[in-house]
């Protein structure tokens, strides 16, 4: 039985690590602050969820498991609120959402790049 839990925990760990990496990749590569936020908030939250879930699977006692659940609950509650606040501030600050312009070619000339 512990073998099954170990496999579940290992799968969650690798998936969580990969998702956080994808989130960071999106933050680096996406053309606009709003799309970057979209990558970081959703993929990053799910990555933290999966890594905390691995701790729940491998958890030795109730204290560790409850703390892991609390970490995940805080991240899940606070990440959308923070992203919303940053997006509102960026919108009020005059950031124009990125638009794909066929004349300039795919991926060319994203706003905000020097």
């Amino acid at each position, binding site marked *: 039985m512990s073998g099954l839990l170990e496999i579940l925990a290992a799968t969650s760990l690798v998936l969580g*690590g990969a998702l956080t990496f994808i989130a960071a990749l999106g933050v680096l590569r996406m053309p606009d602050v709003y799309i970057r936020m979209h990558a970081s908030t959703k993929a990053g939250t799910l990555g933290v969820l999966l890594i905390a879930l691995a701790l729940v699977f491998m958890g030795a006692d109730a204290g560790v498991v409850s703390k892991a659940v609390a970490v995940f609950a805080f991240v899940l509650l606070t990440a959308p609120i923070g992203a919303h606040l940053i997006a509102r501030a*960026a919108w009020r600050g005059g950031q124009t959402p990125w638009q794909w312009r066929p004349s300039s070619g795919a991926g060319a000339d994203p706003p905000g790049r020097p």
Partner: protein
Amino acid sequence: MIIETELTGVMATAVNLAALFLVGAFVLAAVRLIIGPTLPDRVVALDLLTMLVVAFLTLFALASGVGAYLDAALALALVGFLATIAFARFVDLTPEQNPGERR
């Protein structure tokens, strides 16, 4: 081996693979934090870095078996949220820095 752990077998491999992914994510988020052309970009990158540190502390608590790292992750999740809110207010109250990029 990135993290020295007492775990064996498939769990040790998974922990090291996840740590490798997280280190790569740290590098990418730090690059965006440095080059980010506008202030909101940097705030987004900093928010992601806080989330990555929370994930790494959780992973390290699992790898080392020391539960105190989980307390640190819990505290950082709360403090990071407050920092994000403060930075968002700061962005809101700061005049536009690069007027030339509005199209």
